[in-house]
């Protein structure tokens, strides 16, 4: 029925592992906002 079973599972696993990279990008954004907040306190 699905000769690509192993390939498909591997694709899904790869997508899931990619979430760690996406989390890294989101954390970077938070760091940028936190740094801007700190800087604004000194510039204020």
């Amino acid at each position, binding site marked *: *029925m*699905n000769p690509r*079973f192993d390939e*498909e*599972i591997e694709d*899904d*696993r790869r*997508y*899931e*592992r*990619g*979430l*760690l990279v*996406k*989390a890294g*990008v*989101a*954390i970077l*954004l*938070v760091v940028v*906002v*936190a740094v*801007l*907040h700190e800087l*604004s*306190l000194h*510039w*204020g």
Partner: protein
Amino acid sequence: VIHAITLVVDWLAVVLVLAGTVPIFVGTYQILLACLHGLRNHYGQCAPYYPRTAIIVPAWNEGAVVGGSIDRLMRLEYPPDALRVYVVDDGSTDDTAEVVRAKERMYPGRTIHLRRENGGQGKAHTLNHGLAHVLSDDWMQALLIMDADVIYSPPSLRRMTRHLADPAVGAVTAYIKEGSRPGNYLNRFIGFEYIAAQAAARRGQNVLGVLACLAGGAQLHSRENLEALGGRIDTTSLAEDTFTTFNTQLRGRKVVFEPHATVLAEEPGSVGSLWKQRVRWARGNFQVTRRFRSVWFRPWAERRLGSVSFGLIWFSLFLQPLLMIGASAGLLTLFFTNRELASTAFSWLWISTALTFVFITALTVMIDPGTGWHCWREAVTFPGLASLALMLYALFPDQVRRGIVELADLAGVTLTHRGVEIATLLVYAWPAASMLVATLAKKAAERARLGWLSPVLVYLVGYGPLLCAMSLAAYVKELRGASMAWEKTEKTGKVVG
């Protein structure tokens, strides 16, 4: 003595404000867990597996959508002789019966029309009628429960059944996506909500090894699981999906979320319709919380459902409306007892809200980029424009203050001390007041002349506080013992697959 009392009151108020941040930190924890799904998932136990699957479609006046749904089910990438569709017609008064009978002739032996003459008792009763039928012989090895309007992507069913190759798994659910096209602002809010509440949260729950709820429109059960549940769905609550999910796990079977099996669903397009649906869901959750009271925070008795992590996830959402009221009460108390501490607590509350909002929103959009970009405006305005302004103020207080003074100068308005105090009180009251304003969005939607105001208010207060207002309304209804009449969400066939 007075000093000691003031100190106690101050710190109690601070605790209330800090408690208001619990849901956002728990939400962040859950989404962080979702990111670990690549390392901890069920794919290692999957295998090509195509059990004989009965699909039960409960239908009450679904003539507009059920025919298309059957056609699409027949095109699923699944062995045709291992698939049967049972439409349980719950005493429909429209053309549902004619539509389904026409499909019976088109797909002989693969589409079956079951009529329930005394219908209208709710979805669980309808499902039980179908369940009794499919369990009466031994053809069915797995059962898929779906809604009449949802659209399964062609590979979705086989992506779900591959998990049932592991006999420890009792049930599998899919990723329900809002599918109304073009859809309105509310559909886009729901679209974003579903990435966060399903694609992200349920991945996190997979990592914990415990699932809060099988989606009502996409739950696949093994026959063994259904038989262990007594062959019936709970009919005593408004949350039969969650009852089934809990009971499956309490009997020692795993429940798995499969994010790559996608299902499109039509969700409410008006605040009134959304209100009815979510009040029903929240009342159901209230009933679940009460019924399973012996499970919560007892990891020694129930390793997964009783875990502290799962309890925190469940109760932070369940209590969110009360925590928001508590945060406002704390800030308002501090305003009168200790202004400096009030200002500090305000900053803690809104800076932590802002940082977690950036993290959760960015990650949620990236988890399902297609839907995320479609709903990006609603993703950004999810907490509401007013709360976004408060986040900006907490993050950049001097700059925002200067901007307000300059704007007031431009407008020729003098900022008095009394005016600033009143504004501060309003700002402190906002977490609670936002729910009150959200109820006005519902009232406006009910009046033809004020209909335009409803979306304006939703964008202003935010979709999140709107959901909290609905939960609060549900809890009040539940405590007053209101009737549990099933109010079906109206479907119009707007979903485009």
